[in-house]
């Protein structure tokens, strides 16, 4: 994996920086200056070399998946047997594979090829690609996607995003893509060398509003020209395909941009958390794409797209918040202070109770919105409110998770500081996922 100049540069520099030789030789100021320069210039680099996309099967009409058949419309918190089986295997993968790899992946800002191969064995992409294009998807269930996202994030949020990023693009293509777009891209998600892809919505400015994009698409005779900059794009140096939100005639739309397109450049930009997702900045300078790069036709629904991402992040928050609770409980029961477990004190026990209460609330709010979306009913209000409560409460749970462990929680001996950093993303993120 040598297509990672920034990572390489960073790794080299951090090795130099931590070397005692540096101290002895009095080199530290020089190296720090070097690092500053490097960051300032942004490590601009080309994106991952993209493959030649070929349409083996040429669809005449786009494939669209129906929601699973639903029992009668009544309040029902149960999930199907298939969903439970899926949950069991994803939860086991998250616990046995992702969680042990979380700390190192956070340091590396990377989902390792070995982990990616293991994740691919779950076959999640097959559930995003319709049967006619080689996949196994016969229906589209955002509820199932929500459960998977929650369970993956129970292992690690950053790795969950790295795994789900490409599937989000596939889901969007299945939901809105034209026949040509689906034929061109969807089979590649199933190839042995899986197509990695990412959704790019965020832009780097305070009070960012996904409805008011500074990235602009201008219609031209043979296609569109894109200009702008995106940030917090997952798999930034691995993605061969970006789904980019840009304003077209004043309205936000999505464009399929292959990483090798002229004018596309990327920079790894790790954030405080969700680092294993390998996020970074995407710059678009006079990028020219064809007519068929515009995702979908008149049926495209940007509001639903934004809300599905919000709900994706809410789902991740559920998994990570549950991890906090499940970690804090045995810790507080075992940690002795003043002669008894700290959990015997109400001030500690009530924090645990409130994590349980608010997490349950977050889960119900998210489930409600996703279940509405699955049935094709309006869900904008419910998604908005789920985001409001998850954004507030997930961070509260994250900070209380560290608080409950005290000084120990502040160190990397325990995962709660990682979860604290990850949970800060919930209120910040747009795009990146599509359930």
């Amino acid at each position, binding site marked *: 994996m040598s297509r990672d100049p920034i990572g390489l540069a960073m790794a080299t520099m951090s090795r130099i920086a931590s070397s005692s030789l540096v101290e002895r030789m009095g080199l530290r100021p020089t190296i720090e200056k070097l690092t500053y320069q490097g960051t300032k210039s942004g490590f601009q680099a080309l994106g991952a070399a993209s493959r030649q996309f070929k349409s083996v099967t040429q669809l005449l009409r786009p494939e669209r998946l129906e929601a699973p058949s639903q029992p009668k419309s009544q309040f029902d918190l149960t999930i199907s047997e298939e969903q439970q089986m899926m949950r069991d295997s994803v939860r086991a993968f998250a616990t046995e594979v992702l969680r042990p790899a979380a700390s190192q992946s956070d340091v590396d800002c990377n989902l390792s090829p070995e982990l990616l191969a293991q994740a691919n064995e779950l076959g999640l992409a097959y559930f995003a690609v319709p049967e006619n294009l080689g996949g196994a998807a016969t229906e589209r269930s955002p*509820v199932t996607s929500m459960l998977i996202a929650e369970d993956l994030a129970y292992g690690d949020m950053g790795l969950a995003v790295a795994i789900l990023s490409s599937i989000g693009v596939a889901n969007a293509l299945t939901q809105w893509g034209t026949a040509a777009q689906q034929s061109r891209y969807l089979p590649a998600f199933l190839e042995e060398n899986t197509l990695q892809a990412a959704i790019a919505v965020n832009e780097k400015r305070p*009070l960012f509003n996904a409805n008011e994009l500074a990235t602009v698409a201008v219609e031209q005779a043979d296609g569109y020209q894109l200009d702008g900059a995106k940030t917090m794009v997952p798999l930034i140096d691995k993605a061969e395909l970006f789904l980019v939100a840009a304003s077209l005639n004043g309205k936000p739309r999505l464009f399929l941009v292959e990483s090798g397109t002229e004018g596309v450049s990327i920079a790894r930009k790790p954030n405080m958390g969700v680092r294993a997702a390998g996020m970074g900045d995407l710059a678009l300078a006079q990028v020219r794409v064809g007519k068929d790069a515009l995702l979908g036709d008149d049926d495209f629904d940007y509001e639903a797209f934004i809300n599905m991402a919000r709900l994706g992040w809410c789902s991740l928050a559920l998994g990570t918040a549950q991890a906090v609770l499940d970690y804090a409980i045995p810790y507080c029961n075992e940690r002795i202070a003043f002669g008894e477990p700290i959990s015997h004190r*109400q001030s500690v*026990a009530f924090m*645990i*109770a409130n994590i*349980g*209460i608010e997490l349950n609330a977050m889960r119900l*709010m998210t489930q409600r919105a996703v279940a509405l979306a699955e049935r094709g009913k309006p869900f904008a209000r419910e998604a908005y409110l789920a985001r409001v409560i998850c954004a507030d409460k997930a961070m509260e749970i994250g900070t209380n998770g560290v608080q409950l462990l005290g000084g120990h929680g502040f160190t990397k001996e325990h995962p709660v500081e990682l979860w604290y950093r990850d949970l800060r993303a919930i209120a910040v993120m747009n795009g990146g996922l599509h359930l």
Partner: protein
Amino acid sequence: MYLELPKKLKVLGDMATNLSVEMLRPISRKYDLAEHEYPKELDLVASMLDGMNDGEGGAGVGADQSKQKKDENAGVRNGANMAACVGIQGFCWGDVGLLLTLPRQGLGNAAIGAVANAEQSKRFQGKWAAMAITEPGTGSDSANISTTAKQDGDYYVLNGEKIYVTAGSRADIIVVWATLDKSIGRAAIKSFAVERGTPGMEVTRLEHKLGIKASDTAAISFTDCRVHKSNLLGNPEIDTKKGFGGVMQTFDNTRPLVAAMAVGVAKAALDRTKELLQEHTLLDYSAPINSVSSAAAEIYRMEADWEAARLLTLQAAWMADNGKPNSMEASMAKAKAGRSCNAITLKCVELCAGLGYGEDELLEKWCRDSKILDIFEGTQQIQQLIVARRLLNLSSAELK
């Protein structure tokens, strides 16, 4: 998975809201001002509800709807517990004080529904039952009550003082908690149905309160009050293994109902505040919460908390309807709904400023009414204790 109400419950909710608009809101302020005066208009409301309950097979608004009803249909049920929550929410959107003094729908009715035998259920049918647990020296620690019941032949002789008995001066029956032997503790606590007029039972005082003034809150004394043994609810034996379960299980059914009251009151305040702020806040559920006005952001946050409280309440009721143990979820619902309702009603007065604080609007009343919803049927802190003990797997001796 689907978290919307079925059509029949939506219809029920609409009916309760309509009833609120037509019959409760018009007299809401009147009985807030005339504390201790019985709202005679409720007799009509109560007979209407009796009719609805008989006709609809349990789709009522009252607390006595909480009992488990066996449904022959297999599969997921949206049954009597959920219906009660939906009805109560709609009714309390009108006036929670009036709900609490609705004839034949008292918490004592819920207790009778939960633990009475067939003979008692029949004998007490159609009666209005209040619940007497709290004593001057015993609040949340209800296992510590000192009202005594001494057996004397076919009778029990009650002695002690009860306070905070909702509908205590109006109900036909007072369900009283008393101990057969205080030294044994929880297991010796039994509940007795004492009919009004029984010699030795006397209403000694009515409280003057912050809110829910339409509902009478009585102090009742028992002096050598003789109650026939057939009025003991549940098992007369002292079973130390079973402990407190018998009397406490009532709460698993009634806590979601009190949560539903809070959900209804909070909705009233939120709806009215949105109405009053219509020209000042655009609520399109689209712009990020940090890009809208401070007032709009407050409303979004309140609405999110309100929906969360509502869903937690429905979850607890749904679990009861489907035979799943819901003790923790019932407490979660009560904790979240109680505190959210109080916070929402207070914030609504703040947002509406002088309009909210004055008596021309009901907003100030709702924020006085809401306070009790975070106190009775287990305070916020008691609910948190229950949830924490369950999550941490600790006993009440370990987590005190």
